[in-house]
């Protein structure tokens, strides 16, 4: 077992880190406050081949593996949870399924612009009435000649307002349960009847748009069906297996960013005549933060390496996501505490990590659902 990253992965991580520190960190709070999706940053990320890391070179991606993708996502999370979330949703949810399940023609038309970063991707599963119980959806796709007609509402869809394509889950056969769900490629700019009805104001991650979308008789040609009719649910499970690794990586990044901020501050800040890091209570907190961060990273890398080896990762990715998201929240909370009053101000990063981290215990399956998944995998 080798815990050292390959040189190529290290170089990629270091380069992305440098970019993040130079280009993203200085604006991270500002884009949060302005609730602004930083399209220019995503343009730069596209130029550096970041937007399609785990997508085959044949379709304009980098051809990297899941471990490389996890490293990149962690670095983004270390400076901006919002950029990290939009990135992870773009890659894992909006792009990867097209590579896994698309036809050659679909890959050329829809995957390539996402893999190169020319377009941003989105993925619409959740609905107002169906979250954790995701298969219980109301959105329908009815066949009409050689077209499908989509009707329904999707909730909390990351990137929908910026997207060049949205992968929409809809019921094609109401009597077939899990096997009655299918996936459709919707073009939000050109398909009539698609509308972003709300962009939510949130507790954090405000530079990442979270949208409610309405599908009112959206008429699309049948070649927009991804895979076969009825495959939507198994596709979803596979997509989330990979997606959860990226949320775990993003969470690790949030924890690392919060730890870094707290560690630097604790060495500088003096009270009672010495640096606060010299007080047992603060030192123990920092050690604990370090421990949680390192553990989150190890679980994340383990899941990623298994994914790359073609092994099943349902349990590993759920475990990594469960652990890393909790680590991110706790480490960020402790970071606020280490900075005292300053930690509570927007002039310092820990509060932002704290706000951002909370979502990681909710999106792509809540922690309660991860327990359910892991429990089932363990045979309980």
């Amino acid at each position, binding site marked *: 077992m080798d815990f050292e990253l390959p040189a190529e992965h290290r170089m*990629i991580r270091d*380069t992305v880190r440098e970019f993040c520190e130079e280009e993203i960190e200085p604006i991270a709070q500002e884009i949060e406050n302005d609730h602004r999706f930083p399209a220019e940053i995503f343009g730069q990320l596209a*130029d550096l*081949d970041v937007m399609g890391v785990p997508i085959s070179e044949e379709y304009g991606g980098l051809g*990297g593996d899941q471990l490389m993708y996890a490293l990149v996502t962690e670095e983004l999370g270390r400076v901006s949870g919002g950029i990290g979330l939009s990135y992870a949703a773009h890659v894992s949810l909006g792009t990867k399924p097209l590579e896994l399940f698309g036809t050659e023609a679909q890959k050329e038309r829809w995957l390539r612009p996402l893999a190169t970063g020319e377009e941003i991707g989105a993925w619409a599963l959740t609905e107002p009435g169906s979250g954790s119980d995701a298969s219980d959806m109301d959105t329908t796709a009815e066949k009409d000649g050689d077209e499908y007609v989509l009707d329904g509402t999707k909730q909390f869809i990351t990137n929908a307002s910026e997207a060049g394509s949205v992968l929409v889950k809809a019921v094609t056969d109401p009597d077939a349960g899990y096997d009655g769900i299918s996936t459709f490629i919707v073009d939000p700019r050109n398909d009539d009847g698609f509308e972003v009805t709300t962009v939510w104001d949130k507790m954090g991650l405000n530079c990442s748009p979270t949208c409610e979308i309405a599908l009112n008789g959206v008429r699309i040609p049948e070649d927009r069906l991804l895979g076969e009719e009825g495959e939507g649910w198994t596709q979803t499970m596979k997509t989330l297996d990979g997606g959860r690794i990226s949320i775990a990586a993003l969470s690790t990044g949030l924890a690392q960013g919060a730890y870094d901020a707290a560690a630097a501050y604790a060495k500088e800040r003096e009270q009672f005549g010495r640096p606060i890091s010299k007080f047992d209570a603060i030192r123990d907190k920092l050690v604990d933060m370090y421990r949680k961060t390192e553990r989150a990273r190890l679980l994340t890398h383990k899941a990623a390496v298994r994914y790359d080896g073609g092994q099943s990762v349902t349990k590993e990715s759920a475990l990594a996501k469960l652990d890393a998201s909790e680590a991110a929240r706790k480490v960020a909370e402790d970071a606020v505490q280490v900075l005292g009053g300053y930690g509570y101000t927007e002039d310092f990063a820990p509060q932002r990590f704290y706000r951002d981290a909370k979502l990681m215990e909710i999106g792509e399956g809540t922690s309660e659902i991860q327990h359910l998944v892991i429990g089932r995998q363990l045979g309980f």
Partner: protein
Amino acid sequence: MMKVLVTVKEVAEVEEDFEIEGTGIADRYLEYDLNEWDDYAVEEAVQIAETGDDIEVVSVTIGPERCEETIRMALAKGVDRAIRVWDDALAETDLLDVAAKTRILRAVVEAEEPDLVFTGVQAGDDSFGATGVSLADAVGFEWAAVVNDLDVDAVLDESVARVHRELEGGVDEVTEVDLPAVLTIQTGINEPRYASLRGIRQAQRKEIAEKHLADLGLDAEAVETDVRLTEMYEPESESDATIFEGSAEETAAQLAQVLREKGVGAE
């Protein structure tokens, strides 16, 4: 066909708090990175290659295997191939002076026959600031030092390096140097790019040719030196600062008082 040779060096950067051990800084306080000036030299060379046709950019470094990752970063940014000179004799010297570097680099220049050689103005670690010009002298090339602007089209179309040189006191000198030439590159001449991830992946397959002294027709004598590092210490830093406290009026009055006492200003 044109060839640009860029000399690059991995330098140690020292952390804020460090300890000196013998005549060096303890390894655990060091982080290794590409010399800052060399980053600009690499960028300038790559820009020439991107502007013209059929231009090869080769980097050369003198350094141990450890520095390959740093060298690979230059390959990722567009350098075509790299040469790394290392030898037991080099591992044993604790100070490589300008003359020794010149002897090694001269041998590389003679083997590669570049049209242009870029070096950094200086290296951030031992700051001799002399290698580029010394090399030019040794190989009989023209040179320009501390170049902060280069007319790339003139290089390609007229085989001439039309450069701006940054002189003391903010003076800008414009000079023309015929190729082949050595230019020592100043920071700020361009904006070094980030390596693209695809560049990093491709760089893994690019060549880093390891050369021993014998491969260059040299022997251990080439790295002998009369310069010895005898001591390293942190100089006492003296600071004599007075901090005025109070409102703007009060502090202004205190400052005026001091200036008057020192004899500054009109009576």
